């Protein structure tokens, strides 16, 4: 699949291991890398080739908590206006959610200055993260260099048990692969579990592949992709099938019917255990949000668990919807009220809590569980805290009990 997409963009048939130059369909950046990118573009002395294919997001520290952030954001805002690129203002939401909803299409090559750019692989795109300098050059030239990755086939079959979700599949996979098990490679998903997943669940799966080092995590476009695009009034659906005799470097099979809720223990994402094997872990703080699991579908699952209940005394719960649209839907259907009544704090759409830049920082020695993608030391803003990762459902059940809990009894 990666080879097919890259071949279309390189203008010739390419094979894994080759280094090639490929055209790029969409480039995006945000307030975390945008200022450095703008500096590099100026240094380069070149203009943006196709401003219509470029998006600048402000999502990482919003609303700006400090003067320095405000100045960085102003720089991006002014630059976007001057060069006529697409612009997403603070408060609109997390770039990966908006790229999926408004920009990404099957068969595209998408580059973002963010490791979780792989999220858009859920729409059948080859989407990967790069740094500011690579992106400055990609924006200026409309192309990039790539080493064509080997492909790892991951087939997930069967129905998920009650209380288990796509996040548990993702954590299970990273546990199998290890934090560098897919380094430089592309993961291609298949199997009945994937076919039965809604786009919101697929985005979680593709989002997490970078935690095993993968360059891309592609789910072939199908009827669900078409539905997702249609719902937003977007054209551009195409189906790209993998070749019958496609070469896979390795194949992994996961039986979803056996999957229990999975927990990543501190301080690495591949330190994964089924919930039954971790014993009792007291939790001081819970965070639900991020490009991994902050969608309306996630918040509805959380609200279903919290409905009519109060979170455990002494445990905090912070929730960040992934976009303005997510927040508005949560207001419309009563989800937000349920969350607030349970005792949750709800913050404006953005990335800040997930990576320790803004809000929800745990105290020294505290345990925090999050629905996000990383639990590295210092990730949540305090190197002396301990971070666990799980599905939004486990996070919600944990907020009620005060220790890491199976959501099964609430679902």
């Amino acid at each position, binding site marked *: 699949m990666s080879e097919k997409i890259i071949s279309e963009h390189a203008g010739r048939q390419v094979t894994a291991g080759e280094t090639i130059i490929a055209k790029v369909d969409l480039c995006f950046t945000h307030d975390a*890398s945008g200022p450095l990118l703008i500096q590099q573009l100026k240094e380069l002395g070149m203009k943006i080739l196709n401003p219509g294919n470029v998006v600048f997001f402000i999502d990482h520290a919003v609303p700006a908590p400090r003067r320095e952030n405000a100045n960085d954001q102003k720089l991006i805002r002014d630059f976007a206006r001057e060069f006529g690129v697409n612009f997403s203002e603070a408060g609109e939401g997390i770039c990966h959610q908006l790229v999926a909803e408004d920009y990404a299409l099957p068969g595209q090559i998408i580059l973002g200055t963010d490791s979780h750019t792989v999220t858009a692989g859920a729409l059948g795109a080859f989407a990967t993260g790069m740094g500011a300098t690579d992106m400055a050059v990609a924006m200026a030239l409309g192309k990039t260099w790539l080493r064509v990755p080997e492909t790892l086939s991951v087939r997930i079959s069967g129905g998920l048990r009650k209380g288990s979700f796509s996040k548990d599949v993702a954590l299970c996979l990273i546990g199998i692969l290890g934090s560098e098990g897919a380094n430089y490679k592309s993961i291609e998903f298949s199997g009945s579990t994937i076919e039965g997943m809604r786009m919101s669940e697929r985005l979680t799966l593709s989002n997490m592949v970078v935690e095993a080092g993968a360059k891309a995590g592609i789910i072939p476009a199908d009827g669900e992709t078409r539905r997702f695009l249609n719902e937003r009034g977007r054209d551009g659906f195409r189906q790209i099938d993998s070749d019958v005799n496609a070469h896979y470097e390795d194949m992994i099979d996961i039986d979803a019917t056996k999957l229990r809720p999975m927990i990543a223990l501190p301080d690495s994402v591949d330190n994964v255990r089924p919930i039954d094997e971790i014993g009792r872990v007291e939790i001081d703080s819970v965070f639900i949000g991020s490009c991994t699991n902050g969608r309306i579908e996630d918040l509805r699952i959380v609200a279903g668990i919290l409905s009519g209940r109060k979170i455990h005394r002494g445990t905090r719960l912070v929730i960040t919807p992934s976009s303005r649209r997510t927040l508005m839907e949560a207001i419309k259907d009563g989800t937000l009220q349920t969350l607030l009544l349970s005792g949750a704090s709800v913050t404006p759409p953005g990335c800040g809590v997930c990576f320790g830049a803004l809000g929800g920082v745990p105290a020294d020695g505290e345990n925090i569980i999050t629905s996000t993608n990383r639990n590295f030391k210092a990730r949540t803003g305090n190197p002396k805290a301990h971070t666990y990762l799980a599905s939004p459902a486990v996070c919600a059940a944990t907020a009620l009990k005060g220790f890491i809990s199976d959501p099964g009894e609430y679902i």
Partner: protein
Amino acid sequence: MTALNGRAWKFGDNISTDQIAPGRYFHLRSNLPELAKHVLEDARADFAQNTKPRDFVVAGRNFGLGSSREHAPVIIKMVGVSAVLAQSFARIFYRNAINIGLPAIICDTAQIEDGDQIEVNLALGTVLNATRNRRLSFPPLPDIMRDILEEGGLIRYIKKYGDLEISG
């Protein structure tokens, strides 16, 4: 390129970009000299203050995993580190390091201890551990990355050639 000489600062496996350039200093990302004062702070508190120009960061497996923040290699270079040596690198960090002109060298770093004096020859692909009299070799970079590094980074490469080109 000439040989590089300096002291090894040893780090473990899986040093993430969250440890190299922590999110709590997010507001300093446009003030790189200030951000550089905290480089690798959560992995080794003594590093940022005591490292000297031409020293080396020497790590285990999967160095630089996590975020795509280019600030991570930028601030490592900014404190004077002349190369990062590791058993393996996470993909984005590896690319970013070369793009900003910081050599990222894949070799058997188990042969190097903290404080060892080492000499790296990029052209020959060799590392000499002078303290322990051990010699290591490392594979050449892929062609385009070698060209980018030789020019001192991707911006200089594009300024010189005006385009991306695959040689050979």
